[in-house]
């Protein structure tokens, strides 16, 4: 797709907006439809769009293999880590209300934000990883 200028310009133009929407979906899971999973998928899709338009090499320049590999595990670690923090704060595993963040409601709210962000990171970068590893390089007829 590298030689198609329209595809490149449109992809470049849309990527930041799609990413902003992805962050909106992750952050507003408590108010409307959406949440970490959907937002993570949209975030991954925005980067996949960029890679489709500009090619694997250019995409790997933006997000190196090392960074995406680390982020894949970071998300799951954030989720499980918040659970451990709840234990350290004196509650049960994943009992967000016990986190020392002000009132119980605020703490459970922020705890849920935290795990949504964790889910989003893992989902987004797993999607990117699967795409990078599955798609074959230098194929032009599709």
């Amino acid at each position: 797709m590298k030689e198609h200028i329209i595809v490149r310009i449109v992809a470049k133009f849309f990527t930041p907006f799609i990413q902003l929407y992805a962050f909106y979906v992750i952050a507003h899971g408590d108010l409307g439809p959406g949440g970490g999973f959907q937002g993570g998928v949209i975030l991954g899709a925005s980067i996949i769009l960029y890679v489709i338009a500009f090619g694997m090499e250019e995409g790997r320049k933006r997000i190196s293999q090392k960074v995406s590999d680390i982020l894949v595990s970071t998300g799951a670690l954030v989720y499980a880590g918040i659970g451990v923090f709840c234990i350290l704060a004196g509650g049960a595993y994943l009992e967000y209300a016990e986190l020392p963040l002000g009132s119980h409601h605020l703490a459970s709210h922020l705890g849920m934000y935290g795990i949504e962000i964790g889910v989003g990171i893992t989902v987004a970068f797993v999607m990117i990883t699967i795409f990078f590893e599955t798609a074959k390089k230098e194929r032009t007829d599709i």
Partner: protein
Amino acid sequence: MIDILLLLIIVACAIFALFMKDLLSAIIILGVYSFIMAVIFTRLNAVDVAFTEASVGAGITSVLMIAALSRTKRYEHHYTKEERKKPSALFSKIMSLVLVIVTGAVLVYGTIDMPEFGDPEAPTNQHVSPRYIEETHHDTGIHNMVTAVLASYRGYDTLGETTVIFTAGTAVILLLRRKKKA
């Protein structure tokens, strides 16, 4: 009325996807199928499910299928008349037809006992649902019940799901990543 129309479009999509020789077109048709499914979920007031169907079913799945297609051939294998008349080909065709009919019959049989859609007396609306509807905001301080159930009441399940996705990513890295030539 519009529901029946949408369901008919879904059936049409499935049939077209089966008969396409060009696999790329078949993938695109499956994407259309997922979008119509998302519309149907919205009609059923399941907005979160519709959102997931639109982003995962129509978006990412199509992209990953196209990525997988780039490792194989774009067009379906064309069978000659002799190949189609082989006993083994005929046998597999008949067996798959029987399998599909039996599975469909069992599924239809399963729906006979189901309560009517939206029935307030249905077991699903009697068990934990009233508690979630009444207590979620008080328990968690969150407005969207679906998110509260996923993140708080069923937090362990979501942790398991995240681990499943993480495992899928790890498996793909282990199986498909090519080592750089030294």
